[in-house]
């Protein structure tokens, strides 16, 4: 095609260099004004609305505000029935626990990269460092001298009894063969309430520590954290991922991701996370490749919003004819 030939296709038209009229357009001035406008807007919004800062829930606060929930959670860590203990990769080696997309379980592909033994990491190790508690020391000796089957038997029996007790109150648990478990969990509660467990779970033997995986998973295994979140409308079935504490805008741009969790089959599927993430990855790829997807790329031509955007140009051209 020569420079003066009339372009035939829409693609050729869009590739052609503009030969019509131009207008003055000061990009630098536009940028400076935009920067000032955004800066003023930001300062105004920050001054008027501030930002939320809901205090964190540490283990001390959790165990003091909801001691029964704390002990019940610790019991599930000890008998291996907690959310973390039964999670699968990347925390535990139970491959059957992984979520699936059809026949695939990508959760297992990279294996266990953050190994967690919930009984040892959340309960036993913290208690072994405790000194000056004779009852606990005796209980730990009894625990260590027992076989794994006996340990599991005690922990499971106590967990079951605790769930049947009124308000899951350890003081109201029916008598039974629980071995040293009640003493161990009672001691753990005291350590937690004194604030000693937060640091122990975080440090895991290191002086410097920035990995909160263990304390966070332990807290999340209980009901207290979720109760606080649901009260703030942050639950997964409350469009929580795009909400924020208080009356602040959250990550509104996650609306589509959050949407899928509200509708079937995702809302009732045990593989919801994998299915939603799989779908969103597919949709994101489609979004990036819009220019190459027949049909989608033609929508702007079919629904003529562009007549509004370029109305001055179209009006001018119609008048010139």
């Amino acid at each position, binding site marked *: 095609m020569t420079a003066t030939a009339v372009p035939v296709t829409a693609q050729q038209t869009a590739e052609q260099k503009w030969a019509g*009229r*131009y207008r003055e357009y000061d990009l630098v001035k536009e940028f400076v004004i935009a920067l000032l406008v955004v800066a003023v*807007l930001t300062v105004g919004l920050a001054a008027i609305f501030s930002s939320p800062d809901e205090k964190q829930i540490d283990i001390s606060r959790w165990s003091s505000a909801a001691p029964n929930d704390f002990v019940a959670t610790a019991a599930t860590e000890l008998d291996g029935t907690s959310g973390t203990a039964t999670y699968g*990769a990347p925390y535990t080696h139970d491959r059957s626990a992984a979520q699936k997309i059809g026949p695939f379980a990508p*959760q297992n592909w990279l294996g266990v990269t*953050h190994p967690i033994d919930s009984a040892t990491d959340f309960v036993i190790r913290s208690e072994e460092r405790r000194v000056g508690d004779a009852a606990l020391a005796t209980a730990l000796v009894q625990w260590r001298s027992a076989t794994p089957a006996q340990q599991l038997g005690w922990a499971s029996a106590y967990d079951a009894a605790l769930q049947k007790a009124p308000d899951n109150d350890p003081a109201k648990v029916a008598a039974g063969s629980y071995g040293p478990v009640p003493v161990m969990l009672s001691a753990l509660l005291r350590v937690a309430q004194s604030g000693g467990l937060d640091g122990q779970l975080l440090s895991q033997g290191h002086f410097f520590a920035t990995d909160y995986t263990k304390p966070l*998973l332990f807290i999340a295994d209980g009901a207290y954290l979720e109760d606080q979140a649901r009260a703030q409308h942050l639950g997964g079935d409350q469009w929580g991922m795009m909400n924020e504490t208080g009356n602040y805008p959250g990550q509104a741009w996650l609306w589509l991701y959050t949407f899928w969790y509200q509708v079937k089959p995702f809302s009732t599927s045990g593989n919801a996370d994998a299915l939603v993430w799989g779908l969103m990855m597919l949709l994101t790829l489609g979004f990036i490749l*819009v220019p190459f997807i027949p049909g989608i790329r033609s929508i702007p031509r079919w629904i003529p919003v562009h007549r509004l955007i*370029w109305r001055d140009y179209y009006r001018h051209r119609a008048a010139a004819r």
Partner: protein
Amino acid sequence: MTAPAAPRSWTGIVRDRAVRSFPPEQLLPDKQPIYVASWIYVFGVLTLAAFLVVLASGGVLAIEGPQWWHTSTAGHFFNSLHLWSVELFMAFMVIHLWGKFWMAAWRGRRAMTWITGSLCFVGSIGTAFTGYLVQTNFDSQWISTQAKDGLNSVGVGAVFNVTNFGQMLMWHIVLLPLVVGLVIVVHILQVRRRGVVPPIDVDPVDLIPEQGQ
């Protein structure tokens, strides 16, 4: 007089290529085709401006560290600036994105402009998300313990651990802003290189040098 020889050094080759691809009047033009006359065009530069405010407010927060804003009135104000500039940044970008969609702005060998823009949007979502994870408050605890399930379910959590505060802080203040910043630069260069997409159903007369004007 003979034409100057083509440069043989890497520096000369890069310089010639840059000048050829982005002559000054194309890199910083002071005029635009007459059709560039709509408020929708403002949202691109508003997005860029908001990005700079996000960087600046985040930079101030970085000086004193991630806990500062919990104990200092000034720190809390800068956190508020950071939050609201992010909200504005995302709002402007979404409007900009929809505008470009309805313009079918990928026409005329501009697909890479769309792709870099969409990557910028996706990268910004990741950057904002990691920001929520490093607030060191209840939000961070709840969001990280919820988000881990999605990331773990597709295997990403094995290497991208949202409950590891140190890792998320590095992603939020170094890696992701660097990537988003670079993608923005490439996006803007693409816009300057290809120019602003002409209207759909543009009058062919405007594309013929002898008949336009």
